[in-house]
Every structure is written in C-alpha cells, then in structure tokens.
C-alpha cells in the first residue's frame, strides 16, 4: 500500500519536475523533452515523492512541521513500508538484495548462453552490452551492500548489546533509497540500455545513449545509501556498545562491519563525484572529460578507482568478519590471533586508499606511477595473510561442525586463496599488461567477490537464518545448494583464467572461434552453477514459511545475539546486558560467560 502511494507520488514528482523544465525549455524556444536533461531534473523530484509516499512523511518529516509521527504497525505489514527497527530494515535489505542477486544471476545465464558459441545467438551486440552492464552493476550493488545492509543491520546492534542503530531514521531513509536504484536500472534497460559496463568510463559514457543518464542517477543514489549506512555503523559501534563491551571484546563481525563502513564513508564520494561530472558533461555541456575541449578521460579513471578499489574492501571486510565468526563458533575454539586480525582489518582500511592505480597500468598514465602502485598493492597481501592465519589457526585442532554455514565458510578460505594468489599476477606490471581486461581478470574478481564475499554471504545467511526468521532451514537442501554451487563455481571460473591468458578479452559479445571449446565448457558449467540457486531459493521460501521453529541458540554460540529468543524481542533485550568477557572463550577454563543479562528476566524460549 505504502509502496503504491510511493510509486504514485514518484510519478507525480517526475511529471512535475519534467513539466517545469519543459515549460522553461519551451519558453526558450527549445523542445519540451530532452531525455538527458528531463531525467536529471525529473528523477530527484520523483525520488522525494517516493520517500514521502513510502512513509518518510508519516513517520518522520511530519515532525519537522509540528505534527506527530504515526506509530508503525505490527506484523508482516511493517516490512512493506518505512520502519525504523533495525531488525525490520535488515530483513528488508536482505530480501531486496537477494532478489536483485537472482535477477543479475539470471542475466549471467543469458550472457553465458550468448557466449556458448562463437557468433551471435541470442542477443545483438547492443543487447549483449546492456545485459553485461546490468549484470555487472547489479552484482556490484549486491556485493557492496548486502553484507552490511542485511546482517550489519540485523546483527551488529544485537551483538554489541544495543537496542537499535544510532540513527534509526537515517537507517530507514538509506534502505528506502535502494528500490529506486533497482527500478532506475531496469528502466534504463527498457529505454535502450547502456554500454559502459559498471565502470562508466568517459568519453564513451558522455557520448553514448541516454540509458547512461539513468545509470548515473541510480548509482549516485546508491552511493548515498552506502555513505548513510557507513555513518550509521560507525556511530553505532562507537557509541551504542553495552557496558563492558570494550573494543577488545567486540565480536569480529562487528570489527569487519566497522572497517568496511569506514571505507564506505570515506571513499564513496569519489565515485559519486565522477558520475556527477559525467552528468554535467552530458547535460550542461561542461568538458571534464572531453579531450577535444581540454578535458581528460584519464582523470575519470583516477577518480573512479580511488573509490572503486576501496569498494572491494567494503564488500570483503564484513565478509572476513562473518567467516571468522562462523569458523570460531562452529570449531568451538577462541578466534585465533584476534588482536592481529583487528590490526589487519584496520591496516587494510589504510592501504586500500593508496592502491587504486593498479587498475590503470595500461591506461597511459605517467610511467613513474607504476612502481609505487605495484609495491603498495602487493603490500595488501600482508594484512590479508593475517586473515588466513586466523582462519587456519581457528579451525586447527577444533571441533568442526560441518553444517551448511561451516561448509560455506571453509569454501571461502579455498576460493579466496585462489583469488588472492591470482591477484599477484595482476599487481605485477609485466604480467598485468597482458592480462588486464581479459577473462583472467574476470576469473580473478569472481574468485574474490563471488568465491569470497558471496560464499561468505551464504555462510552468514545460513548461520543467522534461524535468528532472523525464527525458523530452522532445511539442512539437506542447504548442503545440496553448497555442493552444486561450490563445484559449479570452480568449473566456471578456473577455465576463465585459462581462456583469458590465451587471449580472450572481456566485455565482448563475440570472440574468435579459437576460444569456442573453452566457452562451451564454461557455459554448461555456468548453468550447473545457476541450478544451485534453485535449491537455495526453495530452501529459503519453504523454511521461512513452514520450517521447524528455531530455538534461541541452535549453534550453542557465545555471542549476544544467540542469548535472546529467535527472532529477538521487539527491543532486543528485556534487561540491560552486561559484557564480562571475550566473545570466543571456548574451552577456556573458568572463563566468565561473554554476557550476563540485566536484572529483568530474559526470555529463553523453548
């Protein structure tokens, strides 16, 4: 209902915005409609209409004008409108991004169908470029935001003993900016798509079709989501910790979320600024990137990668946190080298800001920049190595409980090893000059993003599913999902390394026949990989609707979120939790429990 109102107000806003612009344009003797300019003006107005409609007015803005904010409803209804409970927002993010993940995955299937044979089968070149670009930005959005959006929101406040996030209203705002991003990307496809991938390099992005404008508007909005979320996590983790929750006792997932948020907060502006400059070039006629008028295309690459390299750590630092969390609890051992891991996470935050130009070794930038960026990039492997030390040290001699979340967490170690080691070839200038922009890169970043972050995501998802839904998932379906996904993943992406080295470049709708055998194999493996998600989706829907009721602490884990009912009560804790020891004191003789619940009795359901 609220969503419908939001959509109607968005349309009203769009018509009003473009109408006023059209009026001005007509009075100046121009045509009423100019796709680039009309969307740039109509969209912000539509966005405001949308936010008002979905509840931003009723539950928040009305207070600015002396009114009284409405009380949110209970039950299922609250998931479909503005709500400030971090648990509701976590689920909203989770479901939205899983849907976007499946949609972008479906696009990947179409891409693989097209690439099965040399020559064109399903798409035209133009459609291929749009599909590839949509898949790319869809997956990047999922990867950047799902870990923090879904689990950061739901779990972080519970783990630190807080009642909610520091800024619940900002939290609701940042979630409700997400649907417009997805809608705009889909509209962009409908009006003819765009062909600059997710990177939007000018001058092409300045010269190409108008779908690009919608892409830019969508992704700038998405940047806002990321920044607002980042601020909120930073403030929450600094100020909302329960008594006794010192920095040295924080669960490692909270540290991962904190480190990722720092990066999101400091760097996202870069991307947004770059995209805004492209919009200005297109709509207002500036010439930031127009070589013919003194602009510089390479400038954009610097600005873009200044954000987009750190962005991969927004994806992966919370993932590190989640994986280590699952490994420790399901091996029933203290997290190995906890303090070193914290240092490594913060070290990665620091180094991540000074490696961006490793994406530009062939861009024509100044030669003297090559050596420093080679050195700095390879330095990242040092803190990353500490994460591996901790993972291996934690499972070593443990009591490994091989349930679905654990399988995904262990697979993360394998995949990230491959992803990390192949990264060295790309940091090394002499090899990168060959490998850059080939399928070797495609394989590398799928190993890190999909094999790393997305496997971590599934570890987190299965691990926290009982807590978030109050239901237990089906273990058999979970294991089937894992094994098909793990095997399918290797079969898709290992050969991509090979075909890339052999000379197949990326982002191509077609390729020389010499690469056909590889591609056919990759495509069939891709369909196998795709099938795994059917088991996943079935498991999620069936378990959520009629799975067994989950107990409060199915994994017997020590951290705070497991000491309350599944799902947790409305205000998380009945009394004030007090933290009295580390989060991972498994097997430590006479260790105090991590947390003690305050005076009011705490629900221990079932």
């Amino acid at each position, binding site marked *: 209902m609220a969503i419908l109102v939001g959509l109607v107000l968005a349309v009203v806003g769009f018509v009003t915005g473009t109408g006023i612009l059209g009026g001005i344009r007509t009075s100046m003797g121009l045509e009423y409609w100019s796709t680039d300019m009309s969307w740039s003006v109509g969209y912000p107005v539509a966005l405001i209409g949308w936010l008002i409609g979905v509840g931003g007015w009723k539950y928040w803005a009305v207070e600015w004008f002396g009114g009284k904010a409405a009380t949110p409803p209970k039950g299922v209804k609250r998931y479909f409108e503005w709500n400030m409970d971090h648990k509701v927002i976590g689920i909203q993010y989770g479901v939205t991004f899983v849907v976007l993940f499946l949609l972008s995955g479906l696009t990947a299937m179409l891409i693989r169908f097209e690439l099965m044979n040399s020559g064109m089968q399903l798409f035209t*070149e133009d459609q291929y*470029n749009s599909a590839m670009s949509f898949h790319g930005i869809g997956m990047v959005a999922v990867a950047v935001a799902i870990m923090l959006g879904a689990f950061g929101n739901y779990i972080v406040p519970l783990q630190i003993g807080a009642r909610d996030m520091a800024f619940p209203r900002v939290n609701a705002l940042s979630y409700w900016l997400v649907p417009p991003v997805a809608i705009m990307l889909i509209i962009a496809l409908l009006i003819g798509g765009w062909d600059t991938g997710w990177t939007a*390099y000018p*001058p*092409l992005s300045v010269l190409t079709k108008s779908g690009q404008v919608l892409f830019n508007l969508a992704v700038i909005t998405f940047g806002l989501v990321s920044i607002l979320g980042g601020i909120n996590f930073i403030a929450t983790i600094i100020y909302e910790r329960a008594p006794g929750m010192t920095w040295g006792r924080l669960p490692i997932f909270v540290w991962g979320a904190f480190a990722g948020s720092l990066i999101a907060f400091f760097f996202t502006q870069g991307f947004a600024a770059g995209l805004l400059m492209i919009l200005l070039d297109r709509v207002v006629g500036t010439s930031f990137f127009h*070589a013919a008028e003194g602009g510089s*295309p*390479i400038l954009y690459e610097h600005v873009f990668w200044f954000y987009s390299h750190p962005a991969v750590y927004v994806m992966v630092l919370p993932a590190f946190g989640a994986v280590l969390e699952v490994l420790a609890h*399901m091996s*029933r*051992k*203290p997290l*190995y*080298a*906890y303090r*070193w891991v914290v240092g490594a996470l913060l070290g990665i935050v620091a180094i991540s800001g000074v490696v961006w130009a490793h994406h530009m070794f*062939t*861009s*024509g930038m100044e*030669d003297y920049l090559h050596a420093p960026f*080679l*050195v700095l990039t390879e330095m990242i492997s*040092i803190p990353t*190595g*500490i994460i*591996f*030390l*901790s993972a*291996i*040290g934690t*499972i*070593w*001699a443990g*009591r*490994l*409980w091989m*349930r679905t979340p654990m399988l995904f967490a262990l697979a993360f*170690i*394998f995949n990230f*090893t491959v992803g990390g*080691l192949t990264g060295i070839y790309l*940091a*090394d*200038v*002499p090899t990168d*000059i*060959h490998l850059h*922009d080939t399928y070797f890169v495609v394989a590398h970043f799928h190993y890190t993003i999909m094999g790393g972050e997305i496997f971590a995501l599934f570890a987190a998802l299965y691990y926290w599913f009982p807590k978030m839904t109050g239901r237990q998932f089906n273990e058999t379906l979970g294991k089937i999902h894992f094994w098909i996904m793990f095997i399918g993943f290797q079969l898709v992406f290992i050969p991509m*390394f090979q075909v890339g*080295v*052999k*000379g197949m*470049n990326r*982002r191509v709708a*077609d*390729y*020389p026949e*010499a*690469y056909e055998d590889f591609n056919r194999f990759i495509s069939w493996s891709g369909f196998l990989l795709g099938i795994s998600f059917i088991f996943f989706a079935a498991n999620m829907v069936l378990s959520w609707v009629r799975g067994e009721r989950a107990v409060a602490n199915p994994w017997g884990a020590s951290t705070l979120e497991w000491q309350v009912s599944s799902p947790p009560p409305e205000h998380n804790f009945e009394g004030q939790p007090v933290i009295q020891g580390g989060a991972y004191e498994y*097997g430590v003789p006479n260790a105090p429990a991590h947390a003690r619940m305050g005076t009011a009795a705490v629900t221990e359901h079932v």
Partner: protein
Amino acid sequence: MNRHLWIAGILWVVFTALALAGAALMNPFPTVGAEEAEFSDHAFRMMTYMGAPVFGFVMAALLYSVLRFRSGGGGEDGPPIRGVGAVPRVWLLTTTTLAVVVMIYPGLTGLAELRSDRTHDLEVNVTGFRWAWVVQYPEGFASQELVLPVDQRVKFNVTAPAGDVLHSFWVPAFRLKIDAVPGQITNLYITPNELGDGATDAAYRVQCAELCGLYHARMQMPVRVVTAEEYEAWVAEKAGK
C-alpha cells in the same frame, strides 16, 4: 598434537610438489611471438612457482582440518589456543618476506627491464576509432593490417581522435597492451621474434581491449610478422599504390 603437525606438514610438501609439477608442465600461454612475450611468460611462471607453496600450505591445513577435526556438534569445546606469541610473529615475518620478494622479483626488476630499452628500428602510428584500427607506416601509407618485420624493434605511437572514446591496443602474441586515449599519444615497444599470421592464429590479432561501445568485440585487425624481404616487398607494393 605434534603428530597432526607432522602429517599436515607432509601433506604440505606433497601439495606443493604437485602444484610445482603442474606449473612446470602447464603451458597456458598463446603463441610466443615477441621477446616481450617470453619475458611476460617467464614472470608468470615465476609467480606460479612462488605461489605453489602458499597454495599448498592453505590446502594442506584446510584439507587436514576438515578430514581430521570433525565433530558432530555435541557442544564439546576445542583446545583454547589463542594465537599469541611466536606463531603470528613468524607468520608476519614470512608473509612480509614473500611479499617483498615478489615486489622486487619479478615485480620491480621486471618493470625496469620492460622500460630499459627505448631504441627502435621502426616506428608506426596506430589510431583506434569506433570500431576499427588503422596503421600509418613511415613510408606514408596507411594499412588495415599490421605487418611487421621479424627481429626488429618497433615503436608504436597509439592514439584515438579527440572526439572518440578510449580503446586499447593489444596483440595477445606479444603480451603487451596500451590504451588509445583521445587526444593523447601513448607508446609501446615490441620486438617480434617469430613469424606469425593472424589468418591462422587468433593470438596474432590487434584486439581492442577497452570497452568502446557497440562493436567493441569486433574491433580487430589481423597481424602478420614476416621476414625482412617479405616486409620490404610488402612496403614497396603498398607505397607504390
């Protein structure tokens, strides 16, 4: 405890040996068509050899733990090993050493080597525009086929027209690429040292390697590396027209 370490250590040696053997036997590369290609493949192999023990280590630890340290989840705790003291320090020292080694060799040394020789026997201008390549030869003619004499060092001046978009000049057989930036000239030095023909070998093609819109995939130009005599004949024929 010690027995676990011994067995996992042996596994490590075995996995490393397997990875090294695999790396020594594999030939993932396209045709080697230039000195620079030998050089790049050599660096690629070196990194594979250096990565093998790291890969072997993680695999041994992972596989051994998964097989040996399972439990039914009865809630029994593992030993409270915290990872303080010598182990993380030794680990940090080892990984840092490894990282510094790779930085220097094949990293920085390779980079220096790549930039060392700026002499050339032949200089051609390459322009990329949506969606084709054209080569200007010093004799004053233009060609839509890249023909090069074997064993001569060639300097490429690469560019794109000021109103065009980014492209990237790449020949897989030579292992080098450089972007064609509108309004700017970028350079590449290549010494082809084998004869080759794009008609029969996909590695001998100029392929645009920077997304440039609609026909990016099709933005190719055949490459032929020929003997000095053949080259002269070809130039004479082209220039004569």
